């Protein structure tokens, strides 16, 4: 793979649910070993984009490449092999409530038989510590956790198998500011230490600047801007700046009124 093949490439990605065109030609390159932040209004199709990349939602049209290979039309076995290297934090956690927290965290390692059940508890404690949770949490059931704790367990589960590509769907929503900063640090660390490619969805601009190398904004089913995450707030693109600053007045508001 050459240096400039993007880790993930989306081209002309389209998806409609019934009459509703959610993705309307999404083009996006995500650089290997970098952290990409995706911004966009609520319901703009950010989660759907991630689920398309994961093969959980079949796109209507368009190309999805991972490491230069088209993954939109894979057999099930090939798809599984691709997903083996991807970690995902779902927006709502999606923890398995029939299993204790430690089994949730080490689920993938156990499924891939990379670890014995005896060792999994220790491994879970180790990963839980990284997300700021005590090892005693491992024995609880997900239903006994607070929302923020569930989010962190979800995060622990996404990174436990040290994947190549990690998707974080709103990793810091529902966390207190300090814990949010800790999680941001953890995401940066995953990218640096594991050399992983991270794609995060967030509504928190401070967090976006902290974790992102690159940023992209999705609006009306298309990527309307991409650039350096550090520039968020003064990108020169009126829509992005309005979004980043959270202003009521601006082009996005105008469009809503129309």
């Amino acid at each position, binding site marked *: 793979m050459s240096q400039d093949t993007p880790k993930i490439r989306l081209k002309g990605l389209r998806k409609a649910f019934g009459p509703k065109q959610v993705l309307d030609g999404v083009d996006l390159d995500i650089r290997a070993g970098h952290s990409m932040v995706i911004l966009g209004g609520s319901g703009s199709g950010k989660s759907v984009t991630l689920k398309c990349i994961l093969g959980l939602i079949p796109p209507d049209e368009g190309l999805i490449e991972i490491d230069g290979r088209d993954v939109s039309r894979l057999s099930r076995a090939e798809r*599984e092999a691709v*997903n083996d290297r*991807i970690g995902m934090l*779902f*927006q*709502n956690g*999606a923890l*398995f409530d029939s299993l204790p927290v430690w089994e949730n965290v080490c689920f*993938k390692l156990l499924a*891939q038989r990379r670890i014995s059940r005896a060792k999994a508890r220790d491994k879970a404690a180790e990963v839980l510590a990284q997300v700021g949770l005590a090892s005693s949490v491992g024995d609880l059931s997900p239903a006994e956790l607070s929302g923020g704790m569930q989010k962190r367990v979800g995060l622990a589960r996404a990174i436990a198998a040290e994947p190549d590509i990690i998707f974080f769907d709103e990793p810091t929503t529902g966390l207190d500011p300090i814990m949010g900063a800790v999680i941001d640090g953890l995401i940066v660390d995953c990218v640096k230490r594991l050399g992983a490619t991270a794609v995060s969805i967030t509504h928190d601009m401070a967090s976006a600047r902290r974790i992102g190398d690159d940023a992209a904004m999705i609006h009306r089913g298309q990527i309307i801007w991409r650039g350096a995450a550090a520039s968020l707030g003064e990108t020169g693109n009126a829509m992005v700046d309005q979004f980043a600053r959270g202003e009521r007045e601006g082009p996005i508001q105008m469009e809503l009124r129309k």
Partner: protein
Amino acid sequence: MDRILDPVAAIGRAVIALLRGTGAIALFAAEAISHLVRPPFYGRLFLKAFIEIAWFSLPVVALTAVFTGMVLALQSYTGFARFNAEGAVANVVVLSITRELGPVLAGLMVAGRIGAAFAAEIGTMRVTDQIDALSTLSTNPMKYLVAPRLLAGTLALPLLVIVADTLGVMGGWLIGTQQLGFGSGAYLKATFDFLQVADVVSGLIKAAVFGFVIALMGCWSGYHSGGGAQGVGRATTSAVVASSILILALDYVLTAVLFSR
């Protein structure tokens, strides 16, 4: 006129939906079964489902069977007394129980318990993204969630029916000896004299089919539920209704096939 034909159109639509649904369910079942012969196998999950079906349904099924046996003895005695054929009571009880009522009643009871439980459990997993999460965690959801439950349903129901058969006969025996004046030995002799292996086996085959259908409809409804808590509620209801109707319909078909001599 339109108003009058409305129900007809509705029936037409329902039939088309049924046919389309049947095909999709058949494919779903075939995929799940194909996972039963390919590793990895989830023995722990199979065991859990098996215990949930076989062990925890035991009280309901046992009670249903005993009372059914008792009622059968009473009713058939009343009927046969009119032809002076009271001696046939034991025979009628054992044949009805093993061939029909054991599997059908156990099936219906289990459909209510297990069909609903499977649909609710898997449906909740669907609407909370847990099924999607499975496929991002190197685990095939069909293999993990559906295959073990189908196997457990198919194997557990025959076991329950053996218990139901036994208790049903005992219920008849109880009434026969305590109320109808049969001798204990004579009643049991009459029970086993005419009972054939085929009677019991046919009931067990039915039970296996019913168990498979209950688990299948529970898993299918849950797997395809949508729309939050309401969707899961609908999935649960439709799992129970569909498997109950299928049990009754398949009972007829299986009876026709198994005893078509």
